[in-house]
């Protein structure tokens, strides 16, 4: 029997429809794979019974000829999405044991379309991190390992990126056919780049934020991580949609993204922003970028140099806006109504003890930064100025698109994945620099797609990022497919983690 975990989501869907395999059979394969992969620590909670029960229902639907778009497709859910009756923690001690009595809008859409849930995926605590090392439940280990020039594989544990590290690792290790993720400054795209998977952060407002634990409300957006561009397109179609419960969600029709995957990119104008050629950018990243440009040109796209002059201000501005919103969003975790509570001699003592113990170091740091930049006397100098920068960044993109550019191609990250404990322990800014190519997209509310482009010198995946016009995810899928077709096949790593 073939290993069903090696199928893409689209292949599995087609085999289910053709009744070559059953949903129970398919889901059982993933349940077994997850059970053998605990050393990766990709899941916080596994829900095999739930997946199999849903799979049985799916088989009935298929038998009756009533299959829905994701019928029987096993998915992993980032533990930032509230799931009714299943613990939801945001990878934080403060929410340990919290079982929501409600289902997030996006996951409800997935279940509506017939998908099954394998479990809740690990992440950086409250999605704050770029390596999945800030999780209260321990770091996620990437299935990828470094390979020396002589072919020897290193034992060093590699990070899957973050914050959606569990999602990326689970897809790359074939523990699910696709995963939900979220992206506030790069949390879908950077882990996708680090693990050789495909991730899309859709336009702000494309997916409902209702029921997703908030990090920075004006930047957070849900999206999928999958093995292929087509799989990501299939998932996004089910996840997206207007939701009156989230007033920032936008009421525009959801197209059939999968159809866009096969569309020609001939004549598309691709902008190459000169400001992304950072000083000291590594040779292999520059080479990857050049290669990406060449692939798109060969596929019929027109390449054009553009300028996004305020790019260099994006990262500092992001690290003001995001913590500011987070400091307020996380105020509700106070030990009074749910989650962790440490009693104290009075209410202030209860707050201090609960929050000091409940939040990890990085979360505490960002709450402190956010509280500071919103304080009287500092608000104008930090928060207000950061918002002005945000407006300018958005205008940079608007001007580029107004000049006829259809999408923008950039590297996804300034480097390949690094080893656990290698970065950020001394200087958090070292970690923050991972987001340098991705935060602009969140600041401007645009869609961004990351696809694998090749491997680094030490055998780790490198990703390319495509940035699109608002609500033109279809263009990104077409372009992403062109890159996927042109790039050498990135073979997902074989299991060493059993």
């Amino acid at each position, binding site marked *: 029997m073939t290993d069903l975990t090696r199928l893409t989501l689209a292949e599995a869907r087609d085999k289910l429809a053709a009744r070559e395999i059953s949903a129970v059979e398919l889901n059982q394969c993933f349940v077994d794979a997850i059970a053998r992969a605990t050393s990766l620590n990709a899941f916080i909670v596994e829900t095999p019974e739930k997946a199999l029960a849903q799979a049985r229902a799916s088989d009935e639907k298929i038998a009756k000829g009533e299959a829905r778009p994701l019928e029987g497709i096993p998915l992993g859910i980032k533990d930032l999405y509230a799931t009714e009756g299943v613990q*939801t923690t945001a990878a934080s001690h403060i929410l340990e044991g919290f079982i929501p009595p409600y289902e997030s809008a996006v996951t409800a859409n997935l279940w509506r379309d017939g998908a099954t849930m394998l479990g809740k995926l690990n992440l950086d605590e409250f999605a704050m991190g770029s390596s999945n090392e800030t999780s209260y439940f321990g770091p996620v280990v990437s299935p990828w390992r470094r390979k020396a020039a002589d072919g020897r594989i290193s034992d060093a544990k590699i990070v899957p990126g973050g914050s959606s590290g569990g999602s990326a690792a689970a897809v790359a290790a074939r523990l699910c056919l696709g995963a939900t993720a979220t992206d506030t400054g790069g949390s879908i795209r950077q882990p996708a780049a680090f693990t050789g998977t495909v991730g899309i952060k859709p336009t702000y407002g494309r997916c409902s934020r*209702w029921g997703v634990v*908030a990090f920075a409300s004006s930047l957070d957006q849900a999206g999928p991580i999958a093995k292929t561009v087509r799989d990501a397109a299939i998932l996004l179609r089910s996840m997206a949609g207007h939701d009156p419960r*989230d007033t920032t969600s936008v009421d525009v029709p959801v197209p059939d993204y999968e159809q866009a995957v096969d569309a020609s990119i001939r004549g598309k104008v691709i902008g190459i922003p000169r400001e992304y050629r950072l000083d000291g950018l590594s040779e292999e990243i520059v080479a990857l970028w050049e290669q990406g440009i060449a692939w798109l040109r060969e596929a019929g796209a027109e390449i054009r140099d553009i300028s996004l002059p305020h790019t260099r201000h994006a990262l500092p501005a992001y690290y003001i806006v995001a913590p500011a919103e987070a400091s*307020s969003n996380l*105020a*509700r975790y106070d030990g009074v*109504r749910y989650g962790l509570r440490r009693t104290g001699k009075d209410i202030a003592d209860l707050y201090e003890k609960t929050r000091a113990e409940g939040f990890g170091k990085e979360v505490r740091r960002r709450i402190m930064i956010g*509280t500071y930049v919103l*304080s009287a006397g500092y608000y104008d100098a930090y928060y207000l100025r950061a918002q002005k920068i945000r407006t300018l960044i958005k205008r940079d993109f608007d001007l580029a698109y107004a000049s006829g550019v259809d999408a923008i191609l950039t590297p996804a990250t300034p480097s390949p994945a690094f080893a656990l404990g290698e970065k950020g322990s001394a200087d958090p800014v070292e970690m923050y620099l991972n987001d340098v190519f991705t935060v602009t997209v969140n600041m401007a509310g645009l869609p961004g797609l990351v696809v694998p482009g090749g491997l680094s010198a030490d055998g780790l995946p490198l990703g390319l990022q495509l940035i699109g016009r608002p609500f033109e995810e279809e263009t990104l899928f077409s372009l992403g497919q062109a890159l996927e077709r042109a790039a050498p096949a990135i073979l997902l790593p074989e299991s060493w983690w059993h």
Partner: protein
Amino acid sequence: MNTQAPPSKLIAGATGDWEVVIGLEIHAQVTSKSKLFSGASTEFGGAPNSHVSLVDAAMPGMLPVINAECVAQAIRTGLGLKAQINLRSVFDRKNYFYPDLPQGYQISQYKDPIVGEGVVLVDLSPTEQISVGVERLHLEQDAGKSLHDLGANDSHVDLNRSGVALMEIVSRPDMRSGEEARAYVTKLRTILRYLGTCDGNMEQGSLRADVNVSVRRLGESLGTRCEIKNVNSIRFIGQAIDVEARRQIGILEDGGKIAQETRLYDPAKGETRSMRSKEEAHDYRYFPDPDLLPLEFEQAYVDELASHLPELPDEKKARFVAQYGLSPYDAGVLVLERASADYFEEAAKGRDAKLVANWVINELFGRLNKEGRNIETSPVSAVQIGGIVDLIASNVISGKLAKDLFEIVWTEGGDPAQIVETRGMRQVTDSTAIEKAVDEIIAANPDKVAQALAKPTMLGWFVGQVMKGTGGKANPQAVNEILKSKLGI
């Protein structure tokens, strides 16, 4: 406005006169079925935590959605205050930790409120009216309620109020006495009730006031103010201001300085107490709520709401003066409550409106006040009071008998005309009957007749005797005339 108080409003201190300057922040609960950002009920008096949605409890991932009815109510109120309506306003987060504030922030409006400057005209007496400026009105969420008396060591929280919509109405420091502040709140409450945007029920906390008080010598710039938080009755507002002004004058006259702080009024002890100083004041870290887009609507929407506004007290008062010939003061008294004005208009239909107004204001309101009732529960209906006025106007009963009749209707009910018939209260206008009574009195009192001829004011005594003889039913005017002709004066 920065007018000086007339001398009568000044407070005499040991070292001279002081002027008290007052500004009010009124928190008025919006009349709406559901909360400002959630579908939970706003009903008062439910079991603790029975009107709480996932949003109100600030569960992870929950998002606010603005309640359109609350927005409409704020616009209506702005229109009623003759205020600027802002077509674009912004919701901000006011961040602080408190157990009855589940989100850890209150959603409010800080820099860009939905309503800007307006004005409230306040009648103080038949001859004095002041104009109080409104600086702004904004929408915000109410907090829950902490309960400290359920257990020995524990406190509990009731989130039923959490998220209920409030309008904060901020006045200019345009008031110069506790009396003016009371009159302003009364008038504001009247306007809100007319509009149906707040029930104005202070006992249930639907209307609460934060009172800013400072004192100064006449002509000086504004003194340092203290804010008295959460005063929950109109009477206490006046008391708190008087007590606080006296406290501040005492400090200043002793050479001290006023510390800017937040205080609480204790009605039992008749004093204000410090709650927190300026140094302890929260830094609320306001910033625009990223979960909510700016609130925007068209002028056409405002116009549509304006076209359906009820007649407001000031307009109604002007109409009563013009249409019914009432004095402005009487008209003002009648329009204080919409129900009273409606009552009056029903009773006045086709009648002598001034006479009806007299009866409503003097007899009915006097009696209602005495018994602590309101117009809605009046035992005497507009139809009944109209019936009494009809009997007076057609000379069927005298004014004095009418008061007896009112008493009967109040306690026993019934149709006034029928009561007059069955109880023989009809006024005697038949001159032969009156003449007979007059003749009897004259015959029986020759000495008084002599006195009356010398001193015509004695006539009153004769009138009294005749009325007594007829059981009060004789028409006093007819008695007067007959007496005069019989006595030849």
